[in-house]
């Protein structure tokens, strides 16, 4: 029990310290909170090419640190967010963008899901129509009608 408490406390301590180091890493980005928020906002939309599933804002790879600095420098030079994004795309390609632009090479990416949805919807609609037609077209034979009447009648009679 005491062991458990101790390990919990140690874990909490380790996590707190880890959080602290991360914050320290991010600190030299910018002392001005408004500037820093803008750096992070741009960096969050950019993929780090070293660790491909992290953003430049989240990654601690050397390149990501350099690119965050680059964003800050360019903001200092008065560049717009779009200009900074273009700077990255010119060097690393559309792959750096977490939101790839709509153009002929990304058409399948953007429209593919909707096309699939439409196709699936059309197939479903056809199935439903066909089934409905099958049900409507089928009429009861006299024997079946008689049996149905009997069953309904039985249900209504209190005797059973």
């Amino acid at each position: 029990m005491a062991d458990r408490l101790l390990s919990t406390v140690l874990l909490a301590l380790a996590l707190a310290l880890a959080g602290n180091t991360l914050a320290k890493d991010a600190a030299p980005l910018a002392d001005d909170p408004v500037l820093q928020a803008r750096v992070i906002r741009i960096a969050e939309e950019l993929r780090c090419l070293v660790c491909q599933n992290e953003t430049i804002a989240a990654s601690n790879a050397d390149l990501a640190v350099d690119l965050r600095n680059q964003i800050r420098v360019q903001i200092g030079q008065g560049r717009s967010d779009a200009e900074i994004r273009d700077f990255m795309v010119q060097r690393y390609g559309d792959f750096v963008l977490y939101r790839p632009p709509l153009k002929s090479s990304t058409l399948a990416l953007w429209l593919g899901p909707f096309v699939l949805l439409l196709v699936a919807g059309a197939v479903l609609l056809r199935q439903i129509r066909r089934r409905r037609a099958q049900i409507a077209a089928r009429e009861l034979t006299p024997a079946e009608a008689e049996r149905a009447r009997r069953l309904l009648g039985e249900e209504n009679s209190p005797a059973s």
Partner: protein
Amino acid sequence: MKRSLRFLLPLAVFLLLVGFLAKGLKLDPRQVPSPLIDKPAPAFSLPLLSAPDRVLSDQDLRGQVWLLNVWASWCVACRQEHPLLVDLARSGTVPIYGLNYKDKRDDALAWLKQHGDPYKLSLADTAGLVGIDYGVYGVPETFVIDQAGVIRLKHIGPVTPAALTGTILPLVDKLRKSGG
């Protein structure tokens, strides 16, 4: 006919999916195609590693087909390709210029002394800013640049014998013949 389609269609879709997945298995997600191919090589003007008081710019290298090899003493994969580059330099087929990326000068010089220096010259990109201009994200990287200063190929990762004899050298030959 209709019945057979009912079974064949899902099979066809499945096979298509398998085809895509098989292709996907063979693709290397680390090989991100560079947008710089067939574009003018970004301008640079950097001090030489061997003589920091001398500066070399991209203009100085115009008029020849050359390789730009991005390397660093801290880069483990660079050791893998290095003997190949040393051999290539010895053969004199194509000039190799080094971009010493985010390295310390002493470390870089010691590394070249230890492993051999295949480079006509090495440029010291201490801050990694030229590396950013060239879209470098994983050292080593090798660019083939033509007479007019246009990037024709980017090889990401260590140069292998297959890549050298199969892609890089034939391209160098072709560029030399067409560019004069």
